[in-house]
C-alpha cells in the first residue's frame, strides 16, 4: 500500500479526525459564507470567515466528506487565520497549481505547513476536487466579503 500511504499520510488522517475549525461560528461582524459541493460524490462544505479590515479571522466550517476533504479543511483553518486577502489568494492559487500538476510539483512546507502533506493528492486526479473543496469555498467567501 505504498501508493496509498503516499496519499493518506499520518498528518492527513489525524486532521481528518481532529477537524480544526469544525462547527460554524455565529454570523456576526464582517463575515462571509460559502457553500460548495462536489457533484460527483455529493460532498459538501459550508465555510465562514470574518474579515477584519484586510485580515482573515475565525475560519470555521461544517460539512461531510471524505478524509481528504475533511483534513484539507482542517489544515486550511489554521493556515488562513491572520492572512491578508492578497496573501490568501496567492496561497490558494499556488495550492491549485500544485494539486493540478499530476505529481509534478510539491507543496512547500514553509508556505503550507501541515497542508504540505496534501502534495500526494496531486497524483490522484480523481481526488483533487476533494482536497480543493475548502479552498474553493474560502476563495468564494472572500470574493463575497
Amino acid at each position, binding site marked *: *500500500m505504498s*501508493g*496509498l500511504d503516499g*496519499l*493518506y499520510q499520518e498528518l492527513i*488522517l489525524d486532521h481528518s479526525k481532529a477537524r480544526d475549525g469544525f462547527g460554524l461560528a455565529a454570523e456576526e461582524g464582517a463575515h462571509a459564507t460559502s457553500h460548495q459541493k462536489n457533484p*460527483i*460524490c*455529493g*460532498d*459538501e462544505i459550508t465555510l465562514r470567515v470574518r474579515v477584519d479590515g484586510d485580515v482573515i479571522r475565525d475560519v470555521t466550517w461544517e460539512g*461531510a*466528506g*471524505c*478524509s*481528504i476533504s475533511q483534513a484539507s479543511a482542517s489544515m486550511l483553518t489554521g493556515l488562513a487565520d491572520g492572512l491578508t486577502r492578497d496573501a490568501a489568494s496567492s496561497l490558494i492559487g499556488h495550492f491549485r497549481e500544485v494539486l493540478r500538476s499530476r505529481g509534478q510539483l510539491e507543496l512547500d512546507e514553509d508556505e503550507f505547513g501541515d497542508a504540505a502533506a496534501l502534495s500526494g493528492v496531486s497524483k*490522484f486526479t480523481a*481526488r483533487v476536487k*476533494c482536497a480543493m473543496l475548502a479552498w474553493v469555498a474560502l476563495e468564494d467567501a472572500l470574493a463575497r466579503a
Partner: protein
Amino acid sequence: MTSPGFDPLRVRADFPLLDQQVNGYPLVYLDSGATSQKPRQVLDAETDFLTRTNAAVHRGAHTLAAEATELFEDARHTVAAFVGADEETLVWTHGATEGLNLVAYGIGNASAGRGGAASAALALRAGDEIVVTESEHHANLIPWQELAARTGARLRHIPVHDDGTLDLDAAATVIGERTRILAFPHVSNVLGIVNPVAELVALARGVGALTVLDACQSAPQVPLDLPALGVDLAVFSGHKMLGPYGIGGLYGRREVLEALPPFLTGGSMITTVTLDAADYLPPPHRFEAGTQPVSQAVGLAAAVRYLDGLGMPAVHAHEKLLERRMREGLRPLPGIRMLGDATDAERVALVAFEVEGVHAHDVGQVLDSRGIAVRVGHHCAQPLHRRFGLTASVRASASVYNTLDDVDAFVDAVAGVRDYFGVTV
C-alpha cells in the same frame, strides 16, 4: 435457451481489457453497473463493419449503402428478439437517458398539441399525476420533473422500505385515478433488487396509466421478455450489456409508439417536408432522426449474440452466485451496512454499502490500491441515498466475466478498510 452454465475464466479471456495489472495487482473490475467491458466479438463486429461495409443507411442506393442498411436492420431484429420484441417495436436511441427523455418529451409534445388527434390521449393536464419510485436513477426522475413543470402535472413517488423493497401498500394508494404515467426501474442501480413488475403494471393498468420501465440494470443479467412483462415502454443501454457506448433501445407497444409524437426531428424520419411543415414516418423510424449510430447498432447486436451464446438463464444463475457470495462475504464484517439487504428478494449481482466511519471515497481508494475497481458516490440516485441517511456509498457490481475469486478479493479488501483508517467503533 437453457444452458449448463459457462466457465467465467473462458469468458474472461474474451475481454482484452481485463488482462492488466492496476497498482501492482491484477485488475478486479466490479464496476459493470456503471459500464461493462466489451468482448473481442463486439469490437471485431464494429471494426469489420467499419472496414468493409460502412456507408450511410436508409439513404443511399449504392452497393455498400444497401449492405449497410441490411446489417443495420438485421441488428435491430437481433436486439429486439433479445428482449422478446418485434423489430417494429424497437427504436434505436443513444442510451437509456435519451430513451427516457424521448418518452417524456414526446408526451410533452403531445401535451402541447403536437401529433394531432392521434396523440391527444397521451397529453397531460394540470392535476394529472406522474408516479416514480424513491429508488430512481436521476435519468428516470429528472425528465419527469421537467415534464411535470412544463405541463402542470404533479410528480409523486412510491417509497422504499428499509430492506430495499418497494412499499407496495403505499404504491396502491399513490397510484390512483389521477395517475397518467408510472415510471420505475426493473432493478435499481443501488439496491439490485428485481422489482415486482407484474404487481406494478396491474396497479397502473387499473387506472389506465402508461407504464415506463427502466431496464438498464436488468437487461445485462435477467432474461427479458418485455411484451410479456406488459409494460408500455422500456429502455436499456448498450454499454451496460457488453455493447458499445452511444447505442440503446426503446421498446414500445405498437399502439403507444404510434400515438407518440416525434422527439428529435431532422433527416430520415419524414415523408414530405416543405419549408412550413413536415409529415412523419411511422415508428420506429419516426423516432430516429439524423444519422444513426450504425456501427454501434451492429456492435450491440454482437453483444446480445454473445450473451445469447452464454444463455441468459446461465448468465442470470452466474450473477446470482456472485451476488450471494458478495452479500455473504460482507454481512459478517463489522461496521458494514448494505443498502436494501432484504434477504428473500430476487437480485442481480450488485451491492451498495456503507463502511461506518469511513467515507465511500476513502473505501474506494483502498480497494483501488489493491486493483479492485468499484464505484463510490451517489450513483446518480441522490434521493435514495438521502432516504438511507447517506450522501455516498460504495457499490460493487459484477458481470459475466467476474469470478468467485474476484468477489473474494473484494471482500478481503473491504475487511481491511476500517483498520487502515483506524476506525474501531
